[in-house]
């Protein structure tokens, strides 16, 4: 009885976030953090049922082209301008378990580095066939795929001559609200990664490496579209060898 109870408790708790792996709230080189960074340490709580549960988005909410930024905003028969790419990978938790049936949202600038947004006044032109947003639901293996054009780098006001490396923003839900995460994906070989103050908010090189997608020649479709591989990890549940034996996984 005691063992069962312990097992349930342990199974339902998320591994604590490693706040040295994530960027700290205040990052001096990224000026926007100055007044938007809490100064108190967050108060540590046990997971409650509110944290291990989360919103469920059914496939019925998702349209067949929602994941395809090449065409999901384009006029019929048209396509966005730029380098055609697909990005694919697996969504897993820290224990290596596939996270299936969950929503992923993504957004990005167009091939010239311009966002379709009222606040973006960069001189690169908008593309009338590119909206810049998409979404999908992971399959039973946690796999996902999106098609788009490679986003262009863009300059941003941060006190100097700062340019964002090409990137795609990702919003991830997971299964429990405690797993909620927004991050960005970069492209292998981009010299701007190393110079970017937003990338540099992450202190560990290995952590930055987790956000860099790799060119994937195997999945590249001849005469059609190049592929990049990007695997994403969300928090896993607290787990011990003893618990694994009880669960038989």
């Amino acid at each position, binding site marked *: 009885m005691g063992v069962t109870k312990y097992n349930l408790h342990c199974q339902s708790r998320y591994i604590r976030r490693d706040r040295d792996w994530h960027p700290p709230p205040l990052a001096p080189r990224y000026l926007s953090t100055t007044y938007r960074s809490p100064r108190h340490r967050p108060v540590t709580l046990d997971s409650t*049922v509110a944290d291990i549960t989360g919103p469920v988005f059914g496939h019925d909410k998702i349209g067949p082209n929602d994941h395809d930024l090449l065409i999901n905003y384009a006029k019929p028969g048209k396509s966005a301008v730029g380098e055609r790419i697909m990005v694919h990978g697996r969504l897993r938790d820290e224990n290596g378990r596939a996270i299936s049936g969950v929503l992923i949202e993504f957004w990005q600038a167009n091939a010239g580095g311009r966002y379709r947004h009222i606040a973006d006044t960069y001189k690169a032109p908008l593309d009338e066939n590119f909206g810049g947003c998409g979404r999908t639901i992971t399959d039973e293996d946690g796999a996902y795929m999106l098609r788009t054009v490679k986003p262009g780098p863009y300059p941003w006001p941060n006190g100097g001559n700062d340019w964002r490396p090409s990137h795609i923003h990702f919003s991830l839900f997971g299964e429990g609200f405690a797993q909620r995460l927004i991050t960005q994906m970069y492209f292998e070989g981009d010299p701007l990664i190393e110079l970017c103050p937003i990338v540099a908010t992450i202190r560990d090189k290995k952590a930055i490496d987790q956000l860099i997608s790799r060119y994937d020649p195997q999945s590249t479709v001849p005469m059609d579209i190049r592929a990049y591989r990007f695997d994403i990890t969300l928090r896993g549940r607290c787990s011990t060898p003893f618990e694994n034996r009880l669960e038989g996984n």
Partner: protein
Amino acid sequence: MLDTVRKSIGRQLTLTALKSKESPSQTAGPYVHIGCVPTFAGLEGMFGGVDLGSRMINKNTRGERITITGQVVDGIGVPLKDGIVEIWQADHAGLFNCSRESRGRADPYFMGWGRQPTDRNNGSFTFETIRPGQVPYSDGRLQAPHIQFWIAARGINLGLHTRMYFGDEERANQDDPVLSLIGDEHRIQTLIAAKTPRGFQFKIHLQGDQETVFFDI
């Protein structure tokens, strides 16, 4: 027996090989609306023209209707005009609409999740929802009714989790295990939404003397 041990070791190795750290967070940036509230961002007709989470209740939803209005401000009192606020809450009976809810079946007409952009002129937000029922804490004690909040924006490097409690639930708030854990009365007050004629008013301070309590959950 030896076989079991071997199997167990093999499984541990497999697990170790697959283990990975959580992907690190990056700011949502100033254009978060394109991905999370595209209709608000001006992408007319995108995804059917309705932003996910923009409507939380319908005529079949059970429970007391409430309006939560609020505002997010930074450390020098400047409204956060380019962020998003998400909420996640129990239904009228204290149950979550999720397959991992093991205590019963939640109201099928209440998803429990909402998402709103902060207003681009004054940083305000509004949620039309229902008052949640009570939910137990990890040790089984009942918590006061509350709603989970999550905030993402430019300049926020890792999404911020907090909770909103109700100003007219004084008794339950007094006994709440999480509020008791915070201890400091001044800090506790940052989590309690004031009752107003219109509903509840919840101001979130990212920094400063009145910095809201954020949680590591």
